[in-house]
């Protein structure tokens, strides 16, 4: 099987200073990769490189042919903290803007409108379509941005920390929804919370300067340490149980 995205020996960063070194990763259809790692380790940098926002300093990112023929059908849900919540824009328009990601010259305006309506309905936020985004709760906001990401019928869905600012109930709903979506598309999920995502993702990639691909969704603290990935596993039981170990 050919990968949708094939990343080879990629070094990338800002202002000639690489944040990530020699990354190799292949994303196949129906993959569900959990991207974990410490802050500043390069998780978001990797996403930006895949999205074409950062140019590789070394190596390359190859897309499969049907990925290239469309306008790179990637659905992207950014970190909500980067969104200006006072911007005068309605829920409907935010979702509709997802059409930019796909053949924006081929989709007819009426089609986009219909798709937008359907997605809002499906996600249960049709009733707030005319609200300004500043009036939404964290969970509603994530739903809106998930709709935007899905509008382009992506082959790959990329989510950057969708579980921040969201209550537990919505978090559960989100992961259920992602499991459904995963039947149709590959998903890359960035999270700082290994404990929660490990039961949903299929594989784990640890990012801290380098990338270590772990072909299972079960990972131990020892393995994290051997990947030079200083994050803590928080088991979500009644009593929070934290293992703290930092390796340099």
């Amino acid at each position: 099987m050919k990968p949708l995205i094939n990343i080879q020996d990629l070094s990338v960063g800002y202002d000639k200073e690489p944040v990530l070194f020699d990354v190799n990763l292949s994303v196949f259809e129906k993959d569900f990769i959990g991207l974990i790692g410490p802050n500043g380790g390069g998780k978001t940098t990797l996403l930006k490189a895949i999205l074409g926002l950062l140019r590789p300093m070394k190596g390359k990112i190859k897309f499969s042919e049907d990925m290239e023929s469309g306008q790179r059908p990637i659905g992207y849900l950014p970190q909500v903290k980067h969104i200006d919540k006072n911007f005068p824009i309605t829920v409907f328009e935010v979702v509709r803007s997802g059409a930019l990601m796909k053949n924006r010259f081929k989709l007819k305006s009426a089609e986009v409108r219909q798709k937008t309506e359907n997605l809002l309905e499906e996600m249960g936020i049709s009733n707030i379509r005319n609200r300004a985004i500043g009036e939404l709760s964290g969970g509603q906001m994530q739903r809106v941005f998930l709709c935007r990401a899905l509008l382009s019928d992506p082959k790959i869905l990329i989510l950057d920390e969708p579980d921040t600012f969201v209550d537990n109930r919505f978090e559960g709903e989100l992961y259920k929804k992602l499991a459904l979506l995963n039947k149709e598309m590959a998903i890359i999920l960035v999270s700082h919370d290994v404990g929660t995502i490990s039961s949903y993702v299929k594989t784990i990639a640890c990012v801290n300067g380098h990338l270590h691909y772990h072909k299972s969704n079960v990972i131990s603290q020892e393995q994290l340490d051997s990947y030079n990935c200083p994050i803590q596993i928080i088991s979500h039981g009644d009593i929070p149980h934290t293992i703290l170990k930092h390796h340099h």
Partner: protein
Amino acid sequence: MNTFFELFTYDFFFKAFLAAVFASISCGIIGAYIVSRRIVFISGGITHASFGGIGLAFLVGFNPLVGAVLFAVLAALGIQFFTKVADVREDSSIAIWWSLGMALGIIFVFLTPGYTPNLMSYLFGNILTVTRAELWWMFLLNVVIIVFYLFFFRKILYIAFDEEFARAAGLPVTLFNYLTIILIALTVVLNIRVVGIILILSLLTIPQATANLYTNNFKNLLILSSAFAFFGTITGLFISYFLDIPSGAAIIFTLVLIFALLRLFKYFVK
């Protein structure tokens, strides 16, 4: 009431009326963009820097508005350059160009032999002295802005809201940003004669704040801002005529008064 309508038969008043219409539309739309994108301060820097060009024009002897455009665009590019290339913090870089432009303006005017009579009208504006040629330029600017926004409305909105997403989707974000900054510079300069360098920020922000009381939808914000700008400018114009006070200041005062009244009204009604 007779005197009210008679005013329009005077050539100078009719021209002022047209200037108010053109200023309201251009400042309403561009101001809504500036406020939504939180680049009010950059716009202030560009506006004040344009004074340097006006001073240079007085000294060398060419059309002050041409000098103003030159310096406004130069400042817009200079701010970007200082921030991105020279690694100066953005707000500091704005302040540097803001004050540099004003300083150069003052030096140039000081060096200009003889008395420069209409300097005040550039600083504080005088809608009653707008010329026919200036009206044509304002009209042209309005056409350009309206066509640009009609054709690219959604692209402008989506880039303004989430630049990174637009970039990832392959929109020419940098090109759009340069086009909009040039439109801002032109809007500021061509409306200087209406309210002046020092007061123009108000036409770009107060009607927008008033409109923002009633809508959170970008399209409606553009239209409502222009409407409030028009209402305030015309009312201010009449007040300035009947009370015989400077027009620029009267217009700003009216705009603020409208905002304050409607804000209070909203507070008590809710």
